[in-house]
């Protein structure tokens, strides 16, 4: 089962206009890359943890963090080796394992990567894919591009199901006493290849049918088709605009304070 990250809920962030979210997303992302210092980056990440907890609940915070957990361990192990300046905090047999600057840098990397992961998770968890596409269209993303993404999203579950069917059909071709191909490495890839060929041919064969369907819908005609779907503004759009502006001013003032110091 393939599904988007979006889960419907009656929260303020779910009702927040997707165009404003798309506007804020890169701005909020840039802040992670400013040389703000350890405490500031950690506090900024903590804001996203608290926001996720408030909007989606505690369990949802763990979901993106679980996905990046192995990388966080690697960051913890490897970063101190590349930042050896500063006061030694941990050493064995004359070899410095951890310095204060190395620990600070590790914290910054962990906070930054966790924060970025949470930011994107929050965005996709609270914004439906069709609203993202309509929002992107509002920012003048070409119609053909959004159409490609919409069609691809509809075809992904179909092709995933097709892969399962082809795999099952190929498995039936093995006799009951045959040696299972998955026992050997070469057999594993050898067994996968015919399935992949069948899947690709079946997928490619759908292109002419889809082309005809699109032509019937008027795609590629000299007179462009009218658009029926528009992104509806929420009832409290003025409030949301005001909040976005306040956030923008706060971010800019923080940036000015940082640059002047």
């Amino acid at each position, binding site marked *: 089962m393939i599904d988007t990250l979006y889960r419907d809920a009656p929260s303020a962030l779910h009702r927040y206009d997707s165009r404003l979210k798309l506007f804020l997303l890169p701005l909020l992302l840039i802040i992670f890359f400013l040389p703000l210092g350890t405490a500031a980056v950690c506090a900024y990440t903590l804001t996203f943890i608290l926001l996720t907890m408030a909007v989606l609940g505690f369990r949802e915070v763990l979901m993106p963090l679980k996905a990046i957990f192995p990388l966080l361990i690697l960051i913890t192990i490897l970063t101190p080796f*590349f930042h050896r300046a500063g006061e030694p905090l941990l050493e064995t047999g004359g070899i410095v394992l951890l310095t204060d600057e190395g620990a600070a840098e590790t914290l910054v990397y962990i906070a930054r990567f966790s924060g970025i992961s949470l930011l994107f998770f929050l965005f996709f968890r609270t914004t439906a894919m069709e609203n993202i596409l309509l929002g992107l269209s509002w920012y003048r993303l070409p119609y053909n591009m959004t159409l490609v993404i919409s069609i691809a999203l509809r075809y992904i579950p179909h092709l995933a199901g097709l892969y399962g069917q082809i795999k099952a059909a190929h498995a039936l071709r093995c006799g009951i006493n045959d040696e299972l191909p998955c026992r050997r490495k070469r057999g594993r890839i050898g067994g996968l290849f015919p399935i992949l*060929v069948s899947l690709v041919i079946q997928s490619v064969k759908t292109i002419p049918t889809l082309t005809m369907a699109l032509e019937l819908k008027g795609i590629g005609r000299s007179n462009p088709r009218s658009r029926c779907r528009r992104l509806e503004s929420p009832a409290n759009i003025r409030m949301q605009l005001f909040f976005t502006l306040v956030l923008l001013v706060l971010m800019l003032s923080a940036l000015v304070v940082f640059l002047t110091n």
Partner: protein
Amino acid sequence: MENQTDKSKQNLAFRIAAIAVLTALTTVCTMIIRVPVTPTRGYINLADVAIFFTAMTFGPFTALAAGGLGTALADILGGYAQWAPITFFAHGVQGLVIGLIFKTSGTEEKGKMVMALVISFILGTLIMAGTYFVTGGLMYGFGAAATEIPGNILQNVAGVVLGFPLYLAVKKAYPPIAGYRW
């Protein structure tokens, strides 16, 4: 059939349909079809196989769109949305470069084909692994980012080793595909 595809390959509807289906195929190859790697007990996905196939069969611009969008969608759907913009760039440009190499070298002569495969593997790996290394380094340090390089190279190896035979097999089993390139 040949005439139909020749006509339709210039058609906008055909281009949209081809890119959409190949985007979905790339996403499925990235998310669902995985080959276990015994030494690391991990998996490699077949995104690069789909990108190599698309670049060789449909040309550079389809590979740019389908490779970039397909892998980025897989990141979004798989819960790794923070990687989506980087993946879009890394795999999109990788597809574009591979497609351009095959477009300029041609796919008729055996010697040229092998040369194109080697060059596309080297450049594709440099672009893909290099982009992930640089962006990963900026996000969480170059030490941890360096650990991902072998996995990315392995994925590109799988792309060449499986992508090229896949192109030959599909071309043989479904000849009309030869007219789909633009």
